[in-house]
């Protein structure tokens, strides 16, 4: 296995270190003290700090209801934090002015602006979320159409469909495709804008294991080829270990990050990795983290009673 400076499988921390200096240099996502309290008083997220380095494949792993989707939606700008801030591609210069000192009463909040989105943010949801009335091609084109980027759109759509091996299905309607193919259309739509940051919310949760494993391999390859930054949400330990350079373990009620694990296995990862001892060890470490977190939570609740 050769390791070179441009190899996408190179440990993400090394790559991040090479891209700049300063506290936020090399970061793709910077979440500071973000918490989410719903109007009904439900505490979905405790104040959370999360830094995702450029080129990371970061996975949020946790049980249902731990707020991992909420956190992802905050990063995507689909939900705003009750307090705290979320920044994408933070510049070291912007870091100099602390929003808490600006005197602006709402200054503690920050949601990604339209400018951030233009920098290339894409989201893949739990469901394929395709427009049933539009062909595969028109579904994939949607982000370009909305942005008014008509030029070279057909080429970009064709390229995105090539990436998920669905080019010959361009004229087909979503209902004619299987669940796995619909999900691949959804991924092609996310890639058509050539995003730098890809957010994925349990994208393969509803699929059978065989399809899920294949799509895991495909997404991992895409991440490596396109030097993407990915934030991935899952409740599958195996999926987290197979895909990630870094796994953040979350626990529920209220949601918080209770631990993290770097997965050093280089790219490409094949199915042989899934049955290796290193894979098993990482899975064990993660499940221990999850177990101790839920034990803590039970302990805390018992004390509270």
């Amino acid at each position, binding site marked *: 296995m050769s390791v070179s400076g441009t190899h996408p499988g190179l440990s993400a921390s090394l790559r991040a270190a090479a891209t700049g200096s300063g506290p936020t240099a090399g970061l793709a996502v910077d979440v500071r003290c973000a918490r989410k309290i719903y109007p009904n008083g439900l505490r979905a997220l405790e104040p959370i700090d999360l830094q995702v380095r450029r080129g990371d494949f970061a996975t949020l792993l946790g049980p249902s209801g731990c707020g991992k989707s909420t956190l992802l939606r905050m990063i*995507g700008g689909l939900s705003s934090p009750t307090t705290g801030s979320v920044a994408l591609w933070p510049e070291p210069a912007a870091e100099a002015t602390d929003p808490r000192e600006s005197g602006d009463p709402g200054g503690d909040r920050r949601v990604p602006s339209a400018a951030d*989105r233009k920098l290339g943010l894409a*989201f893949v949801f739990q469901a394929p979320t395709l*427009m*049933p*009335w539009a062909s595969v091609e028109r579904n994939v084109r949607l982000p370009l159409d909305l942005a008014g980027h008509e030029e070279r759109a057909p080429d970009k759509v064709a390229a995105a469909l090539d990436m998920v091996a669905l080019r010959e299905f361009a004229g087909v309607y979503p209902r004619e495709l299987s669940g796995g193919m619909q999900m691949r259309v959804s991924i092609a739509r996310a890639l058509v804008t050539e995003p730098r940051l890809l957010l994925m919310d349990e994208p393969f949760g509803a699929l059978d294991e065989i399809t899920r494993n294949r799509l895991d391999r495909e997404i991992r390859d895409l991440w490596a080829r396109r030097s993407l930054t990915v934030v991935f949400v899952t409740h599958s330990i195996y999926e987290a270990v197979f895909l990630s350079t870094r796994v953040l373990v979350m626990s529920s009620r209220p949601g918080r990050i209770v631990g993290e694990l770097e997965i050093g296995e280089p790219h490409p990862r094949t199915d042989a990795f899934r049955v290796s001892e290193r894979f098993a060890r990482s899975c064990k470490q993660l499940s221990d983290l999850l177990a101790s977190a839920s034990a803590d939570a039970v302990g805390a609740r018992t004390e509270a009673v």
Partner: protein
Amino acid sequence: MSSRAARWLAPAAVGVAVLLLWEGLVQAFHVPFYLVPSPVLVLTTLVHDAALLFSALLVTLRITALALLLAVALGVSIAFVFVQSRAVEVSLFPYAVLVQVTPIVAIAPLIIIWVKDPLAALVVCATIVAIFPIISNTTLGLRSVDPGLADLFRLYGARRWQVLIRLRIPSALPYFFAGLRVSGGLALIGAVVAEFVAGTGGTASGLAYQILQAGLQLNIPRLFAALLLIMLAGVAIFLLVSLAAHFALRHWHESELALER
């Protein structure tokens, strides 16, 4: 026999059986034609009075078509206004219901007095009868947007009009057509009822007027023939609207896919 053929043949057989029974009973009991005319007599009357009846049909159809177009244009516009804000919908929706529940026969005389042109008065009446399903279904449809797709549009910074054209309107189409199917029939009923109420004060030439006249003259076969034309017109409107829905939704919506499988 294929199921497709059965769908046409079964109801046709029932119809033929009823007509034969009707003809047989009228003949057997020597029922006078001024009480119940036989089907054959109704058909011969239809042919005999064709000029009169078909021009009357055209008048009624014209009122119906104008009313339906007006109901669609107004109803869809009102639905667009409703979905702009909950406050607007909450403030105005009760009045839409008020229009819906007021019997048209009770307000038609007023409208006929207020609107000078008799044709326009009848169109207004029929529109009032037909508009509600369009308003309520289109409003529901424009609101029934897949939340995931709404998030997606937000993520890509879609503008309000882009959301309307690319997301809300396509989502609303199945609901709109369900409303249109009901409204098509209602527009015809509205046109006929309004003509009845207007009597000689209306255009004095539609099918309802012919029915009124035939009733007064005890020309029962003509009355039946006019009635038959109204029913056929209603069925034709239903089929036309269903065809339009099929062409608009055939590629993707479950309601139309079920027909193909």
